[in-house]
């Protein structure tokens, strides 16, 4: 508790001395998620001894003049199913003090940070995954001249309610030429470039292998623009980093992200390509899963919001992936033959993710042999194994002043072994989705969702129906069911029904749900956690102030 009270008192003292004229500003937010678990042997929802599990967060931010301060209390008593059991406990894992000078900001304590696209460093929080790799240390951010941005930091990563063993040191710079040179300000040409380095120190206690105690990654990036066209590139390199995720091989890592976008009124085009090889970088070389991630290799796949198209999500493979992405969004203007009275939007997306090509380093050493250089991989070599493929077409159409809809076809190829470690083979999913919203009055609306997933593999076909009624401004009631009606094992033809009531008012949201959740994985940006089957009542409260 001393670690909380002393900084608060210090903050009050300094702010009183330095900014007596400034007003206090207080803000924060609260999130409480809890579930009362019931047993259901049919879906594999096991008995939970505690009956109720919950994840709770409370953020409080104070600011006065150039001083900022924040603390977060977290309580996992005990963590909800599917979240890492090592989260169990409570405490103040996030606390910081920040002072802003005219061209310099200094943060002490915990902070989140990202360098470029995140290939060398991305520290962030994603509560739906139970993920938080906040850094604890010192960060300096500087903006010395127009268009010049510098950052430097040193610290350790959060690991549940303690810190990961590795010490991280990093720096980043970015120069925006259009800001630097006044003559370029109004030009259609735009150019920014930057670079970053991050190094991890972790002592070598291994008696078998010589492990590098200092592991370095660096990255260079640029963003080139001309009128509506943008080309964003980042290349990263990681020196030898034998660790638990790569099977303790000494090969260097590299990654390249290249994305071209074009936008104009009614049209958006995106083309992207990614290569990642041995780029999983952790704050402790022995960590796996979601623990201790230092960097982030961005996902190159569409985020699906509907239950059946999200059933088999994309999982990023930072240790070996070649991915491609293409997307076109087009608005067919109203009062045209196709657009009709209200116009129509079409999205077409294609994503493909493959393994990288790997060759053995010699005839006698198999690929991936521990304590070797692992393998050789040509930079543009694409492996045969397909991890993920997604072809989606979506049509959004307003049919009348009160009725609008969305029709979608999604084709997903899902490699169950690469994505979730289950040797169920590759699934070829064909998914159809219809979403209709009927605005009955200004305060009442009815939304209806029908989905069907067809596949020949594993548990075969699924169907889903959902009806959602919003009323009296801020109230939502929904009733839905996902049904694995064609499971080859008739005893597993399960219904996963949910009933939900949600109330939002001001900045508060309260939601109560009763129903069943299917076993699977939940992903955000290609970073995933296992979701066990569960059944029961859940309560979620979010508010901010």
């Amino acid at each position: 508790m001393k670690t909380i009270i002393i900084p608060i008192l210090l903050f009050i003292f300094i702010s009183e001395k330095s900014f007596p004229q400034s007003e206090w500003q207080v803000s924060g937010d609260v999130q409480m998620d809890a579930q009362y678990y019931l047993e259901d042997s049919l879906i594999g929802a096991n008995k939970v001894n505690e009956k109720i599990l919950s994840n709770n967060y409370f953020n409080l931010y104070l600011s006065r003049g150039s001083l900022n301060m924040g603390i977060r209390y977290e309580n996992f008593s005990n963590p909800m199913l599917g979240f890492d059991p090592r989260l169990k406990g409570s405490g103040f894992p996030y606390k910081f003090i920040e002072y802003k000078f005219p061209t310099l900001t200094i943060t002490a304590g915990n902070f989140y940070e990202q360098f470029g696209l995140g290939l060398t460093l991305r520290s962030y929080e994603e509560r739906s995954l139970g993920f938080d790799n906040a850094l604890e240390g010192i960060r300096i951010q500087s903006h010395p001249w127009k268009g010049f941005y510098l950052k430097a930091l040193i610290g350790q990563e959060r690991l549940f309610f303690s810190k990961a063993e590795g010490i991280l040191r990093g720096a980043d710079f970015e120069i925006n030429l259009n800001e630097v040179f006044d003559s370029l300000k109004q030009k259609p040409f735009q150019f920014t470039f930057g670079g970053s380095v991050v190094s991890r120190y972790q002592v070598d206690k291994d008696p078998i292998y010589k492990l590098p105690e200092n592991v370095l990654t660096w990255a260079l990036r640029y963003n080139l623009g001309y009128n509506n066209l943008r080309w964003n590139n980042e290349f990263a390199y990681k020196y030898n980093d034998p660790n638990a995720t790569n099977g303790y091989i000494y090969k260097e890592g590299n990654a390249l992200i290249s994305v071209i976008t074009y936008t104009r009124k009614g049209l958006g085009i995106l083309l992207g390509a990614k290569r990642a090889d041995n780029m999983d970088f952790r704050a402790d070389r022995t960590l796996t899963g979601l623990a201790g991630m230092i960097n982030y290799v961005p996902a190159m796949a569409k985020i699906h919001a509907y239950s059946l198209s999200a059933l088999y999500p994309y999982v990023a493979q930072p240790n070996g992936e070649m991915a491609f992405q293409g997307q076109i969004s087009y608005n067919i203007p109203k009062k045209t033959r196709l657009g009709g009275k209200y116009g129509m939007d079409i999205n077409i997306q294609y994503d493909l993710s493959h393994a990288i090509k790997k060759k053995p380093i010699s005839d006698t050493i198999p690929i991936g042999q521990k304590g070797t250089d692992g393998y050789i991989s040509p930079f543009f070599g694409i492996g045969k194994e397909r991890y993920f493929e997604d072809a989606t077409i979506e049509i959004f159409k307003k049919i009348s002043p009160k009725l609008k809809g969305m029709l979608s076809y999604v084709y997903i190829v899902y490699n169950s072994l690469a994505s979730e470690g289950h040797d169920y083979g590759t699934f070829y999913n064909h998914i159809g989705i219809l979403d209709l919203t009927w605005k009955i009055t200004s305060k009442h609306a009815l939304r209806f969702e029908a989905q069907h997933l067809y596949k020949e593999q594993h548990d075969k076909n699924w169907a889903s129906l959902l009806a959602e009624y919003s009323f009296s401004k801020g109230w939502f009631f929904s009733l839905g069911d996902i049904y694995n009606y064609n499971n080859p094992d008739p005893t597993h033809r399960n219904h996963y029904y949910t009933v939900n009531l949600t109330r939002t008012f001001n900045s508060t949201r309260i939601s109560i749900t009763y129903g069943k959740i299917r076993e699977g994985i939940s992903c955000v940006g290609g970073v995933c956690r296992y979701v066990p089957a569960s059944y029961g009542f859940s309560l979620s409260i979010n508010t901010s102030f």
Partner: protein
Amino acid sequence: MKKWIGLAVVIAVLIQACDKVYPPYMETNNTPTPTDSVVQKVIIEEFTGHLCPNCPEGSEVAHQLEHLYPGRVFIISIHAGYFANLQSPNYLTDYRCATGNELYNVFQPQSYPIAMINRISRNGSMLVNKDGWAPLVDSLIHTTPTIKIRSTKQFNPSTSTLQATLDFIFLQNTNKKIMWCAYITEDSLVSYQKNNNSALGPTPDIPNFPHNDVLRGSINGTWGDTLISTPVMAGDTIKKSFQYSFGTVSWNLNQTHIIVFVYDLDTKQILQAEKFSVK
């Protein structure tokens, strides 16, 4: 300009913060253990199972440590839990035993492979994933032992009976309550094993995987018997002996070993261990 110089210095320093390791990547500084010296010995109790695709990697780590510290690291492979279940058509050899099942129920491993290293508790848990075994074994190997175990044995082939006498020699004064225990392990059992590491064998199944150090049972129960419950002085020796009849078990007694260990009753930490063959 000063700021740029500052940034250049930061980046230059960071770029230096990198160690490039060149082959050979294996350490070469270990020295053989003198056979007559009193040294600390370490038991790796590895929870495993033939349906566990990551377990060949665990087995490899354990055997690397066994070879790195010959005669000082003993492996006990506990086949228990879901991954040790039988599955048609290839996984029908049952390596489970009552002792292993009891250890599984008490220590409740959640992910495989995972092991206890001398049953040392860290952060409230004795279970360590395979990437933590080597540093922990290395740190324990270099500690000063408090007990020495000396064994003499005689095997009667006509009755398949092992007669053993154990001397527990205390090297320091102690007032701990200490238990002694003797487990039986068997080597060279060849059968199927799931595998997802192509560097270690065919995937997803290795048809002829050598299962070594398989826990078969205990001479004196899962938790053993009391060795001392009152203080002893350095130099004191406590003698224990046992007779064990293997009867008509199908085990290959040429490949069967006894691992004797002593542990602190309060902390459960293993204080010393010894291993000898049945025949």
